[in-house]
């Protein structure tokens, strides 16, 4: 069953810059779906359009539909989307640096009834024991990895159905990236949280994800099962840095490939 379905989404910033040019994607309930693409492709914009956070950036969804549980939900305010069960962990962690770790977690729990607080807190501390050790520390003094754990911890406090994760691996050492991804997987399995994961680290994301989309310049140019994309020669060449010899190809060829595939398929 589809939990989130985006159709032909167009987003414009400042009334002039067209950033999403008819983007469509689908996220199955219970799955981990990943959205990959180069810098500036519009990945974060896509997530913000879903969560409603475009509002504060002078961005507007000018056409297209976003269906959540089969119902349209465009132009909702971010606090309403959080209450509906969609939670975005923003790019760059965005923790509240002059609040303590536990106060940050209380912010994550803002929309939840107070009686669930301690059980959810316990859950977060089980996923991230390091946060428990630092719970009275100012969040601004934590390492980048701990801050990312806190950012994900905050989302667990909100008990979302759909978790939008924007580049959780940003600036982290490979070992830590693995640890974070393991926990994302666990949250997906144990809490039944559906995940839409935006990543630069294509290899990690595709090996984790059930389904993947590759976007370029505001559109989806390729999609498929995670394992399929991982072994696709074009993806390997452009995103995983594996060369198959021959001259350098451009992204445009990927699109040709996609078209060819469509015609044949």
């Amino acid at each position: 069953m589809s939990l989130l379905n985006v159709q032909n989404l167009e987003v414009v910033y400042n009334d002039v810059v067209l950033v999403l040019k008819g983007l469509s994607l689908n996220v199955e309930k219970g799955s981990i779906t990943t959205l990959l693409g180069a810098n500036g492709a519009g990945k974060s914009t896509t997530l913000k359009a879903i969560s409603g956070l475009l509002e504060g950036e002078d961005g507007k969804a000018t056409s297209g539909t976003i269906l959540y549980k089969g119902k349209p939900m465009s132009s909702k305010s971010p606090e309403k989307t959080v209450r509906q069960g969609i939670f975005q962990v923003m790019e760059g962690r965005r923790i509240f640096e002059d609040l303590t770790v536990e106060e940050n977690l209380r912010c994550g729990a803002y929309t939840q009834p107070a009686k669930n607080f301690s059980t959810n807190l316990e859950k977060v501390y089980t996923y991230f024991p390091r946060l428990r050790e630092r719970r009275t520390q100012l969040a601004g003094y934590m390492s980048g990895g701990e801050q990312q754990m806190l950012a994900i911890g905050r989302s667990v406090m909100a008990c979302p159905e759909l978790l939008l994760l924007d580049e959780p691996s940003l600036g982290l050492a490979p070992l830590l990236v693995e640890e974070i991804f393991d926990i994302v997987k666990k949250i997906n399995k144990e809490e039944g949280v559906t995940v839409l994961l935006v990543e630069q680290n294509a290899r990690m994301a595709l090996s984790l994800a059930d389904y993947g989309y590759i976007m370029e310049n505001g559109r989806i140019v390729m999609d498929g099962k995670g394992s399929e994309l991982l072994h696709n020669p074009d993806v390997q060449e452009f995103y995983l840095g594996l060369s198959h010899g021959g001259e350098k190809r451009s992204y445009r060829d990927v699109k040709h490939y996609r078209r060819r595939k469509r015609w044949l398929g």
Partner: protein
Amino acid sequence: MEYYLQLIINGLVVGSIYSLVALGFVIIYKATKVVNFAQGEMVMAGAYICFALTVQYQIPFALAFVMTLAFSVLLGLLIERMVLRPLIGEPIISVVMVTIGLSSILKSLVQVFWGTQIRVFPSILPQEPFILMGLPIAPVYIAAFGLCILLFAIFSLFFKYSSVGIAMRATAFDQQAAQSMGIGIKNIFALSWCIAAVVSSIGGIILGNINGINSQLGHLGLKVFPAVILGGLDSLLGAALGGLIIGVLENVCEGLARELLNLGGFKEVASFVVLVIILMVKPHGLFGTEEIERV
């Protein structure tokens, strides 16, 4: 000696009122980054409403007090809704200009309704001074100081432990991130204005009980600037201490100047002189945040 002790006590009491008004100012600044030039006029509005209720409508003081607070909540909501919300996203300088306009409007309204002469509250506390360590202190002073401390304690607990208080601090740090938590930042803005209006009114009512009020009361807002800048624009503790320090400083300086040089009028400048000196040493104020830097 006794003269100076008396000055210090006066300074602490007036300073605690500055602190209270500074608290309102800081809350608005933290939540919305708006420098509210109408803070002093919010003090005045509260004082006059309470005056009107107690003197003109003969409502018992306690009830009038509560009604004034309710009025302040409305005033805060109204200002946020009518004046500031439409300006969200506009340059901060426009918003600041609007608060200056707002201060003129509030002041004119007060003058229209109540004129410019000094109005005196009926005394609600006994006049008989308290003797503390040989010094006579008016009960109203003790009540004023106690009330300010109580309010600061309440707000400290509120910001430390309540969900909404923590959300307000989160919003002050990063509005968009706060939105992503499901925090309704417009409600937070409105709440900040309400709190600011309420504490200002309380400050105004206390002042009215001590000195009486006139339509120049809004100038108090100017005194709050050295207090908050001294304390660091975004620190509650800083507002509290900044207010007290300014209160004591201006009273002691005035007293010294009168005693030693036989000059008056130092009260108005003393605080600004000290402010300049402190800012040269600590540009973020005594308690202002310098950005956390991780290494």
